[in-house]
């Protein structure tokens, strides 16, 4: 199998890896770089468990080829917290018990943080549409939406 050399930046850190062309960015992150926070649910773009930022834009890493990460900046769930404390969105997921099995959680957090970075004061409908590509089989979504609303409120108060 022919491998391609990929140089990319993950969570601000330069990374080098060898990957096969058919491998996804998700495979590259998990299997080559050992960043297993990003999850695989479906592998076909439907569930959002694999959500990362690619050059600042939300994507399903299962629908990006590893070789496409060449020269790009990737942000994963491992890059969301500050070195010494959780990001507000993470903290609020804990406080609101917005997770059960946790498989969907990294994707929800990366997507919710991206929403709040773009729109600090989203209404419930905006939150639900923004997160429509993130599926959760456990929580029933309500606690997730509450956690995101609470995070938005806290961010508004602290700024």
């Amino acid at each position, binding site marked *: *199998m*022919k491998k*391609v050399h990929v140089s990319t930046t993950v969570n601000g850190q330069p990374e080098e890896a060898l990957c*096969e*062309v*058919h491998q*996804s960015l998700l495979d590259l992150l998990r299997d080559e770089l050992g960043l297993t926070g990003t999850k695989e649910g479906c*592998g*076909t*773009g*439907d569930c*959002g468990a694999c*959500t990362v930022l*690619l050059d600042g*834009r*939300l*994507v*399903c890493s*299962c*629908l*990006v*080829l590893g*070789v*496409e990460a*060449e020269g790009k900046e990737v942000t994963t769930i491992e890059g969301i917290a500050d070195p010494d404390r959780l990001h507000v969105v993470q903290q609020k997921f804990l406080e609101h018990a917005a997770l059960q099995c946790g498989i969907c959680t990294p994707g929800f957090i990366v*997507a919710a943080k*991206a929403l709040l970075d773009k729109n600090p004061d989203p209404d419930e409908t905006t939150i639900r*549409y*923004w*997160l*429509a*590509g*993130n599926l959760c089989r456990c929580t029933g979504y309500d606690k997730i939406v509450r956690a995101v609303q609470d995070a938005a409120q806290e961010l508004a108060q602290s700024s």
Partner: protein
Amino acid sequence: MSSYTFAAPTSIDEALSVLANSSRRGERAQVLAGGTDVIVQMRSFDNEPRLLVDVKKLAETNEVSIGEDEVFIGSAIASGVLNENDELKRMFPGLLESADLIGSTQIQGRASIGGNLCNSSPAGDTIPALIVNSSVCVIANSNGNREVPVEDFVTGVGTNCMSAEEFLIGFKIPRPPARTGDAYLRFIPRTEMDIAVAGAGVSVTFDDSGVCTRARVSIGAVAPTALLVADAANALIGTQVDDSALRAAEAACSAAASPITDKRGTVEYRRKVVGVLCRRAGTIARDRALA
């Protein structure tokens, strides 16, 4: 070819020569834009190793230019990027909304309108919206670019008029005249993340006395390809696009449809729904034109 290979050319000429070389060697190549169809297909029914040619590094496929008479939209621009362009949104709200219907936020971070058209699914949401705006495909070919109206581009389910050595650079769209509005609506059983059961696009232009002078109507997911429905447009031209004109356009769309029955809907249902969507999209397009 025993495994997948990858090329990311940085000019149109380079992309054309990569495609030509591969075809000369008798090897399969496939253009890659956002990959939201290609990679899903690689993981399911089509895992034959091939050369993937990424066309996102070309200046032209990422270009948006708004000229006096004509707008150019590059084929590979992600829907999420396109929808941040306020000027395009003002000019072609229906077209941008159709791109905004594709998948989730994450999918829209990658999915392009060029990919939506080239995938050539009967249910591609942007296709009717491109057609009603009289969009023309600009296709790269080693003998020079050629241009094909979108309504003539798709030739069947999953097939189109491009050869293996060509690719889509982008779309030329005439700048909408004054008092023009467009709209696209689709029906899906839920509100997000599904494939259209039926879809309809309408674009109308009015003169200064409020009479419709130009109309285009296109329907999707109710035939092997999206259709330009001249009878529906003719029902609107010369009217004020009032209720009776819209009902005539509705009937013309239902008559033009030749849907199939599948798990998403029956023939009768789709015929009915596509007409209703035309009437509703026509109302929105009219109100936008006269706003």
